[in-house]
């Protein structure tokens, strides 16, 4: 098969799996997950083939794998869709395929395949556990299988389809289609346990918040299509198109068309990748099952946002000269750096193991956006790849921890939150495999020097920020990196180190191989993915391995990006912040006793409360948007507009028509029409009444009458007609 046909076929298996499961196999749990995992495996296989082949092509950036077909006619020409795999798409395919496959396998274990059905379980709620009796007659509480097991696999298969479509698209329209399919799936999956009110609220919040971004993005696409007449990469990223976009002015003063389009598209990314101020949905999205969290926050949806801006970099940076930033880039570097620091501070005070990761995701995405904002194209792509691996690892690891904790909770019957880190502790002995892989993921996230992937990608971003002279961004990101290392170590210490802070934690258990195998695989990549991009000028290690990531992905751009010169400042900074943050976190939290409150609470005081409540952004948005919207719908639209104005008009019209009707009835119908009919009927009746007495029934009277009439007639004729 040619590479192009394989690329065309990549999104196919997941969508086929989706329909198969939904239409035919949803009653059989085993068959459903076999189909879904099989589909993910096929796509993975195809992606690997494409990746390997793409890797061997020289100058893939200039000559990407591409193939187009006509889709629908637009005037005289056809709107064309097709596939497009350049180096950026190839590396994205690589990490998407791996994480998706791992998440699919992990889901089998996470949803307790092979466990008995729970007595109290029903669709729409998390499984409550089942009671089994062993051979000695002892009763045990064990985890029970998810009631909507098949549905889950159908949804994530559709999700995977959306992501593959997005990555292999050669135009922004099919990219947008994939983007929206993921939006739908994230809604369905966050609200997967739809019987929980909080899950429903989170699903709606996620859907509406990302929709805000999507509307702007669609505007951007429409404007782009109007200006250039095309949405395909080949046309819009061509030299002359970019030039046209830069020189043509937009309706908004001071913005070129390129700048306006860039800003609009970036707002779409802000929604999808949860950048401030549209970040609020992502922490709430933790209501979904943990594989979903990994899916949304690592492999697919949030990556899609960053992938879009990386893909769009030529337009975003169009017109930048001599290191000056364009308007969209300035916006991105500001929003990205701010979000990176902002989310990192919130993560300090979160106790839910998944929420910490959610905020760290927002923070890391801010890193990538900021990197792109200062023009560090390759560094952003590099961090996207490494982050996908270690964040998927961390989410799946946290799911494994929660699973182990739930096992303990079922065993002891305690009424505690299995996701609260202050109820954990000492899990490294109970769940060694989870511990070691989580440790690798956590160190990668903190940027532990030299061995982890996170270090190399983060270091590259910092080096770029410093090298290009964006000191504010550099300092902000460095500070965020310090906090990242700190809260990561806080999380690891609270979860795994010290002693158990609850009975349940004491009875936690290592999870099944279907859950630990993905952890091990992802941990492998969380370490090795970084080796692909070691800068040549790095002391001692530089040049041992070729920096092929830079060569490969950098070739996507028309103008090959130059690597920055080596400088000790960013390197030392990243060493200090990573190690310092990790040490601080370990020192403060590794021996926290049971029942103790957070040691940060006292010194930080009111700041801690603000962090704990996420700077009151939910309350602010509630006040600014939700309540006005509710007021508008309940009071303004319902009471005033609907009941008052529209119903009022309708009622008035009805009343007018009604009185008109009664006028017609009283003045026309009753007297004239009815009267006429009545007169005819009545007179006939009266006539009959009067003359019926003639009908006596006596034959002789009839005869008399006949005689009289005969005589009358005779007389008449004789008298009148015989006159001359």
């Amino acid at each position, binding site marked *: 098969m040619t590479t192009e046909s394989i690329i065309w076929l990549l999104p196919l298996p997941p969508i086929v799996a989706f329909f198969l499961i939904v239409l035919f196999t949803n009653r059989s749990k085993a068959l459903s997950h076999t189909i879904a995992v099989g589909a993910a495996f096929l796509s993975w296989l195809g992606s690997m083939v494409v990746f390997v082949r793409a890797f061997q092509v020289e100058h893939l950036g200039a000559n990407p794998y591409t193939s187009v077909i006509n889709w629908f006619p637009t005037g005289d020409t056809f709107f064309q869709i097709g596939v497009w795999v350049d180096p950026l798409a190839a590396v994205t395919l690589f990490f998407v395929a791996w994480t998706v496959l791992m998440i699919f396998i992990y889901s089998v274990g996470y949803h307790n395949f092979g466990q008995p059905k729970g007595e109290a379980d029903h669709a729409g709620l998390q499984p409550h556990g089942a009671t089994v009796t062993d051979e000695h007659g002892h009763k045990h509480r064990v985890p029970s299988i998810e009631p909507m097991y098949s549905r889950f696999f159908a949804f994530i298969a559709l999700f995977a389809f959306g992501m593959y479509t997005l990555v292999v698209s050669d135009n922004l329209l099919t990219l947008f289609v994939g983007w929206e399919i993921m939006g739908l799936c994230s809604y369905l999956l966050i609200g997967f346990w739809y019987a929980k009110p909080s899950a429903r609220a989170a699903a709606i919040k996620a859907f509406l918040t990302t929709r805000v971004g999507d509307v702007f993005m669609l505007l951007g696409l429409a404007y782009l299509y109007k200006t250039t007449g095309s949405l395909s990469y080949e046309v819009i990223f061509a030299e002359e198109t970019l030039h046209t976009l830069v020189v043509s002015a937009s309706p908004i003063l001071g913005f070129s068309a390129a700048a306006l389009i860039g800003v609009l598209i970036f707002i779409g990314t802000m929604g999808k990748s949860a950048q401030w101020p549209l970040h609020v949905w992502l922490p709430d999205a933790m209501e979904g099952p943990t594989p979903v969290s990994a899916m949304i926050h690592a492999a697919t949806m949030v990556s899609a946002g960053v992938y879009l801006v990386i893909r769009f970099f030529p337009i975003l940076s169009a017109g930048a000269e001599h290191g000056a930033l364009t308007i969209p880039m300035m916006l991105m570097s500001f929003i990205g750096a701010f979000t990176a620091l902002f989310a990192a501070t919130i993560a300090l005070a979160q106790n839910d193991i998944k929420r910490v990761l959610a905020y760290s995701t927002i923070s890391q995405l801010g890193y990538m956006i900021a990197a792109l904002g200062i023009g560090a194209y390759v560094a952003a792509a590099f961090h996207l790849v490494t982050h996908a691996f270690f964040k998927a690892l961390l989410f799946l690891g946290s799911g494994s921890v929660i699973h182990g904790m739930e096992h303990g909770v079922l065993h002891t019957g305690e009424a505690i939150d299995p996701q609260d880190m202050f109820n954990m502790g000492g899990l490294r002995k109970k769940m060694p495999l989870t511990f070691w892989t989580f440790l690798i993921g956590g160190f990668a996230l903190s940027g532990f020097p030299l061995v982890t992937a996170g270090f190399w990608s983060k270091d590259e971003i910092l080096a770029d920020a410093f090298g290009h002279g964006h000191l504010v961004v550099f300092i902000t990101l460095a500070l965020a990196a310090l906090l990242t290392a700190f809260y990561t170590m806080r999380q690891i210490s609270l979860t795994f180190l010290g002693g158990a802070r609850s009975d349940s934690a004491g009875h936690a258990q290592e999870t099944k191989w279907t859950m630990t195998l993905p952890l091990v695989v992802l941990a492998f990549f969380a370490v090795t993915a970084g080796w692909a991009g070691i800068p040549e000028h790095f002391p001692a290690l530089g040049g041992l391995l070729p920096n092929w990531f830079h060569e490969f992905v950098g070739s996507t751009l028309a103008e090959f990006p130059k690597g920055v010169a080596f400088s000790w400042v960013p390197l030392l900074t990243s060493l200090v912040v990573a190690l310092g943050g990790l040490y601080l976190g370990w020192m403060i939290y590794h021996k926290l006793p049971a029942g103790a409150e957070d040691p940060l609470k006292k010194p930080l005081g009111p700041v801690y409360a603000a962090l704990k409540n996420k700077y009151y952004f939910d309350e602010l948005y509630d006040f600014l948007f939700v309540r006005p919207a509710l007021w508008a719908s309940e009071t303004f639209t319902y009471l005033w507009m609907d009941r008052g104005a529209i119903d009022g008009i309708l009622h008035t019209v009805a009343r007018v028509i009604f009185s008109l009707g009664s006028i017609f009835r009283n003045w026309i119908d009753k007297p004239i029409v009815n009267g006429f009919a009545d007169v005819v009927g009545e007179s006939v009746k009266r006539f009959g009444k009067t003359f*019926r*007495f003639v*009908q*006596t*029934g*006596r*034959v*002789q009277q009839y*005869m008399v009458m006949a*005689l009289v009439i005969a005589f009358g007639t005779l007389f008449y004729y004789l008298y009148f007609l015989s006159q001359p």
Partner: protein
Amino acid sequence: MISLSYYLVFSAALFCIGLYGVLARKNAVAVLMGIELMLNAVIVNVLAFWRFRTPELIAGQAFAVMVFAVAAAEVAVGLALFISIYRRRHTVAADEIDLLKW
């Protein structure tokens, strides 16, 4: 020679007697007899006109014969009806046979 007018006067008298019988008699059989008288008056009338006006044609006699036949048939049907009414109502008084009224 008896002139035509004698016959016509006789015929008219006979007709009036019959008519009176039809209108005034209570017994239905008597009413039927009145009708027979009226028919006979008509026959006398027809034959008289035939004899005095067109004796060369046969139409007058033929009409007379037809009226006899009709009268005979009528009597047969009328008597049958009266018998049937008598069986149901035990009367043949004309003024009591008055079911068909308002």
